[in-house]
């Protein structure tokens, strides 16, 4: 069975400046045990999409569509059921561990919190379980007594990973788990995360699934099974990771792939695409294909209509008029 399905998901933020459509009709599947990469520039709606899974969006967000986790829609679940699903079925590795960890609580207590809550192990063994988790992410068990500020950035991110694994969820959502770290540490933490997700899977076809979000198409190409590329709140291309990376069809993906020749190149972090212009602000989108003002091969028709996401090759979809089927 499919682990996670987004069905025509729309998310709007209402702000004083007007309506901001951050996610616009996303349909996407994650199979059990599969690692799906989501790539896209800053502001294209990746975090919004990920937060919708466990209904963690801010109060000013309005959501339409369905998010089926193990076949059940989390958007319409009762609160009690939703709380039970949170962390035990899907857990999150946040973007910046420094702000995601409670600064005045020991990390051991913070890791133990979901274990105690969901009672995945008897109370007496929680301490041992926390130690085991810390060891798995390469930290001494004694670190449980530390406060977040006493750890390095890489260590904090390991704590986040240990915490995400605590209840052995079927799905891990890692939202740019390494952006705050320097390049060497980025690679180590990413290896650790993907390694653990593979090893800790509970069976050949029901392993741990993961959504890995990143700006960096290169990183996703080497670590994921499949990739979906987002632009202005929509999926504009998806397919097997290596194929996407080696043979991108959509002009935007091509630009992304060209921008990340090496894994985690820091210079490319903030001027990643080599494309003219800035990513569009979702509150003020261009007409037609949202990419047309920056597209090197845009035709007059691109300003008028929005291309649909269609199958362009086996297992591959793209949303562009200029891509042949």
């Amino acid at each position, binding site marked *: 069975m499919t682990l996670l399905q987004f069905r025509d998901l729309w998310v709007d933020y209402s702000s004083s400046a007007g309506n901001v459509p951050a996610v616009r009709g996303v349909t996407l599947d994650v199979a059990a045990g599969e690692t799906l990469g989501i790539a896209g520039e800053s502001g294209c709606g990746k975090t919004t999409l990920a937060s919708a899974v466990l209904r963690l969006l801010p109060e000013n967000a309005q959501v339409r569509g369905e998010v089926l986790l193990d076949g059940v829609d989390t958007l319409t679940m009762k609160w009690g059921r939703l*709380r039970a699903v949170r962390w035990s079925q899907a857990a999150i590795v*946040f973007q910046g561990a420094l*702000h*995601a960890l409670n600064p*005045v609580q020991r990390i051991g207590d913070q890791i133990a919190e979901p274990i105690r809550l969901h009672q995945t192990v008897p109370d007496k063994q929680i301490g041992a379980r926390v130690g085991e988790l810390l060891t798995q992410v390469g930290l001494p068990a004694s670190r449980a007594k530390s406060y977040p*500020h006493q750890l390095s950035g890489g260590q904090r991110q390991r704590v986040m990973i240990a915490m995400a694994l605590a209840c052995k969820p079927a799905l891990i959502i890692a939202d740019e788990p390494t952006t705050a770290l320097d390049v060497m540490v980025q690679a180590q933490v990413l290896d650790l995360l993907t390694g653990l997700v593979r090893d800790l899977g509970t069976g050949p076809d029901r392993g741990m699934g993961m959504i890995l979000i990143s700006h960096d198409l290169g990183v996703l190409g080497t670590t994921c099974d499949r990739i979906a590329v987002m632009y202005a709140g929509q999926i504009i291309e998806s397919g097997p990771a290596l194929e996407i990376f080696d043979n991108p069809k959509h002009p935007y993906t091509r630009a992304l792939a060209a921008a990340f020749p090496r894994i985690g190149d820091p210079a490319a972090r903030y001027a990643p695409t080599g494309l003219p212009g800035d990513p569009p602000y979702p509150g003020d989108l261009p007409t037609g294909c949202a990419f047309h003002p920056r597209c090197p091969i845009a035709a007059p028709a691109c300003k008028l209509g929005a291309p649909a996401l269609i199958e362009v090759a086996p297992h591959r979809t793209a949303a562009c008029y200029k891509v042949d089927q």
Partner: protein
Amino acid sequence: MLRAFVTLAFVIIFNFFLFRMLPGDPIGLYARGRNQDPEQLVELRRALNKPLLEQFLTYLRNPFDSTIDSTRFSRPVWEMIGERVWPTLLLLGTAILLASLIGIWVGIRAGWKPGGRFDRMSTGTTLILYSMPEFWLGMMLLIVFSVGVFGIPGMFPVGGIASPGADTSSPMGWLNVLWHLVLPCTTLVLIYLADYALVMRASLIDERKQEYLTLARAKGLRDTSVRKRHAVPNALLPTVTLIFLSLGFVVTGAITVETVFSWPGLGLLTYEALRGPDIPLLQAIFLMFSIAVIAANLLAELLYVIFDPRVRS
């Protein structure tokens, strides 16, 4: 720590020079509006004609000199302050304790759902209380609950700390004191809690934006647990610190409210000294309040060191 001492040093210097550097005859100021023993005046004038530096050094040697007399009461000023400290401690201690408990509770309820019904009501009320002169509130409470108007019986005493002749060492006497405490304490509690509630609310609203609260929710915690286990403990520390830092503001309330209720503490003493004016007494009171406030500032820093792991290490 060092800062506290420097601040204190400047209070002492300020205290000394202020009354000497200003235009006019300091002796005249000292003796204003009262009959001063002429011999004492001559003595005073002789002391004041010494070189400024020498006077300053004499003062510095012991600003708490037990021989400095009040010009109004002809008693050592520090002895009088010593007597008047206790009623003030009782009044302020009770008021601060109650006000912080209630204020923090209100701040939490309002700040956790900003813009909600409770928030709109409580923020409106606290803003009005915040705009109120505390002595006016005291006077109104006196008129309504002690004198009695519009058919409301006057239930509470009009002032003082105990009825004349009451034995304050017996349980009945304590009750009597408690009965006298009700109105002044209520006045101060209402004024202080407005401030504390606003601070706690702002602090919690700040906390609400923090990402670790989203993490706590993602873990499956109930809203109440997220609030109690994560948001409130983090918001409490800055609030409690601010309560300590606001002792200067607390002192203001004490002076006028003690005056209105004839509560025989340092505040009333200030008012009495002011009506003289009794300069030595005022100087001593100023020094004493400053020390208290500086000490409270130090305590606030200490609190952070004790309770915030980030500062501790």
